[in-house]
């Protein structure tokens, strides 16, 4: 009897362990539509239009199956309309023979129009809430374009357009530094923080959009239509309010401490862009404090790099000269940062997180001013920038050719 009881007991335990697990959702690979990118627009009626970039696996990784995989496009696009994101996603099933699978969606494209009209946090909510959707997906804004067009353009080299967008962002952030790649998780974290506003990169299309949707676009050396990174979108309370680009954008990336490497052209003895400083690493520290009821932010930049180009006669073997060059570089970096801060102050949007810094050092004061931070205090912030640039090497050459003549 005892033995039977024990057996029953263990059966019940094993049974519950198996049945309550929730891992029963078996899905075969051939029943999945792998969504690579999701583009969200708003149509004239004010409803959401979702454009799903779905991977055609056979055309991406053909290999030995069906004789080379280049007959069809690597991705197909399905659109759905709805009053909510979930609705449009579900409605696409009328057009699709497979179950939508969002776990590999790495890119969310939001149209500029939509981002200006309403806070993007309402779009990000269903995406974050979904169990499959990854919060590491990268967000970009379709700058002056429809999000659906960005998703539809076929790309070279990286066959899946979503990958092309993500990798372009990642590498330009690392090597040029005017754009940043922001994941959904980071965006949401910034959106809910009172002391920081969101900045997201834009993406643009060059050339003819209609040609870009055809396979011919990938069968020429110079594609008729190309996706490229645009400016940096500045948000306020979740809505897009301005675009910044060029040196201002780079100054912002400096302040966000996301800059990895870049090339900074500097003036030398009245010649503009006489030398190029190749930044290889940098560290930016932002400290904030309250003084006499006014916030003061001190910014400390430590930059390290090489001389990448020297077009004027200059004796680079002389340490004193190098010190002078460093001073010039420091001035240039300081200028870019100042420009970025001024721009942000003009937009009344604290994309650098000065508020957060203040919150950390002075939580009591912060509570009092948090509500009025962006509009009253942030535009008045006094900044104090200290840049310490260091030339590690001058490249494989010492002096430019002109010196020896």
């Amino acid at each position, binding site marked *: 009897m005892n033995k039977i009881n024990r057996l029953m007991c263990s059966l019940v335990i094993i049974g519950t362990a198996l049945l309550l697990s929730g891992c029963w959702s*078996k899905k075969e*690979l*051939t029943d*999945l539509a792998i969504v690579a990118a999701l583009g969200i627009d708003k149509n004239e009626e004010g409803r959401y239009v979702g454009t799903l970039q779905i991977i055609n696996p056979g055309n991406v*990784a053909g290999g*030995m*199956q069906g004789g080379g995989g280049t007959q069809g496009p690597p991705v197909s696009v399905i659109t759905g309309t709805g009053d909510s994101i979930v609705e449009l996603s579900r409605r696409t099933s009328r057009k699709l023979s497979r179950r939508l*699978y969002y*776990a590999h969606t790495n890119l969310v494209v939001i149209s500029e129009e939509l981002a200006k009209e309403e806070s993007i946090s309402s779009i990000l909510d269903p995406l974050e809430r979904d169990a499959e959707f990854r919060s590491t997906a990268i967000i970009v804004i379709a700058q002056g374009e429809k999000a659906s067009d960005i998703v539809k353009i076929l790309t070279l080299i990286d066959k899946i357009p979503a990958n092309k967008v993500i990798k372009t962002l990642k590498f330009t952030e690392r090597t040029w530094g005017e754009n940043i790649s922001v994941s959904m998780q980071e965006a949401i974290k910034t959106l809910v923080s009172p002391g920081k506003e969101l900045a997201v990169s834009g993406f643009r299309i060059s050339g003819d959009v209609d040609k870009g949707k055809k396979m011919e676009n990938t069968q020429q050396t110079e594609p008729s239509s190309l996706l490229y990174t645009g400016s940096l979108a500045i948000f306020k309370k979740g809505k897009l309010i301005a675009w910044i680009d060029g040196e201002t954008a780079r100054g912002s990336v400096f302040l966000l401490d996301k800059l990895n490497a870049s090339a900074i052209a500097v003036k030398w003895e009245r010649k503009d862009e006489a030398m190029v400083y190749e930044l290889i690493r940098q560290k930016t520290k932002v400290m904030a404090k309250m003084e006499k009821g006014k916030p003061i932010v001190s910014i400390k930049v430590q930059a390290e790099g090489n001389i990448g180009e020297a077009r004027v006669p200059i004796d680079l073997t002389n340490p004193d000269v190098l010190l002078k060059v460093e001073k010039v570089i420091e001035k240039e970096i300081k200028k870019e940062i100042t420009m970025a801060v001024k721009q942000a102050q003009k937009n009344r949007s604290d994309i650098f997180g000065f508020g957060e810094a203040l919150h950390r050092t002075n939580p009591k004061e912060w509570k009092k001013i948090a509500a009025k931070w962006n509009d009253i205090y942030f535009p008045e912030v006094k900044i104090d920038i200290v840049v310490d640039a260091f030339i590690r090497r001058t490249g494989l050459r010492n002096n430019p050719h002109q010196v020896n003549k």
Partner: protein
Amino acid sequence: MTMSLFSLSKKMKKLKIQKKPAQQHDLPAKALQSSLQEQIDYIKEKTGNSIDVVIRKLQLGDGKSAAVVFVEGIADSKAINDFLIESIMNKHPVHNSQPIFEILLKEVVALGDVKEITDWDNLYLSLMSGESIILVDGAQKALSASTRGGEHRSIQEPGSQVTVRGPRDGFTESIRTNTALIRRRIQNPDLWLENMKIGSVTKTDVSMMYIKGIAKDEIVEEVRNRLKRIEIDSILESGYIEQLIEDQPFTTFPTLYHTERPDMVAGNLLEGRVAIIVNGTPFVLIAPAVFIQFFQSVEDYYGRADIATALRFLRILIFFISIIAPAAYIAVTTFHQEMIPTQLLVAIAAQRETVPFPALVEALIMEVSFEILREAGVRMPRAVGSAISIVGALVIGQAAVQAGIVSPAMVIIVAITAIANFATPAFAVAISARLIRFGFMFAAATFGFYGIILGVIILAVHLCSLRSFGVPYLTPMAPLIPANLGDTIVRLPMWAQKKRPRLFSDNKENRVGDNQKPQPSQSRGMVNSALEKGDQDEQN
């Protein structure tokens, strides 16, 4: 009706039980007759006039007739001719006062092991094991002389456990050769050998070997008792014994180690284990066996410690691959597609597009066809074997993929599983991994990784529940014995392995002395003087 049937079958069982002992005691345990002719007739009757039972009649010096009986083939005919027949015929005993047997024993038979026999049971036992029987007319006893021999396989390199470095000799089918191979390695009187005959019909010699003072008495006693309680008609291989004495019959894991290598047996005896040697098979059993032992190779001890440790880690990894690889593939492709990088997922998805089966069926097709191939490869005659492997490789590797029945990724998975399985050093564990793998595949197909983890937990619990002669199977990891961890997954250098396995050895003495760690000589004087001498030589 059913009741009566049930009781009937019960009665039948009882009847059978009652019958058995009667069969066993077919041989009369009676004493020898005194007449030589009667004795010879009796032997002839008992052996059914088999022509390999040779009965050679002789005339002793004092006119008495005698006979030498032996079985041709299992007795050494040269020894019988030279030291028995010839010396009996040449001998003319002078003093008749002494009993004839004493003369034979002391002066005539020039062989080492000679004993007196008084009853038929022992006579047949000796005769059938290859000894020669000397019968003398008028005596109610016989002499048996040890003339075991005949043809058997010479010592060869063991086929099942090949090493790069290490001795090349392997056990043979002859028990005496095998015990000698072990004795040659451990030249110590404390190496004890206990012999028994098991099998009511086959009367197979089974010996247990251990080192007195190192092996734990309780374990030796346990092995002895388990061997003694065996009642079976035949023992044809040590596997028979293994199945009759193991602790837990319902497991796929081996709880006794078997090996063809004498050096391995010697090493295990020195750790306090007991070897069971069975006549007629080169496979010697070692008890008790622990799980980690099956991932160790003798070569680990002959090579460098660091390399041996790395290899042992690899073997554990291999074991898990051979159990889990196909299951993990199934789980990933049917449940957890989010776990693999997008590019890889797309690549696998592209391969799966044309495959008409769910992942489990695909995996089963491949695994089963591979098992068929392997079985065919093992059982086929050597000459046909290569044909099988070519056909198999073509069919499984290429045609199946091109026909769209399986995906190339699955072929890779099956291949890596198979290779991992072959790389497991102990065949007994490899074959159990082969079986468990299918269970894991079904668990993965039903519950994904959750199922695999459940399977691993069940496996761990099962392994923890196993015992080998009372020793927990996962010793020294569970229960944890820190002093013995030096020879598990890691293998410490010889000078650092001081203690014997605590659970099967009572011996507390260190195995190596203190300060055995080698190091360079303290002074550099030797080198320096040699250098100076060299310099001087050059100057001269």
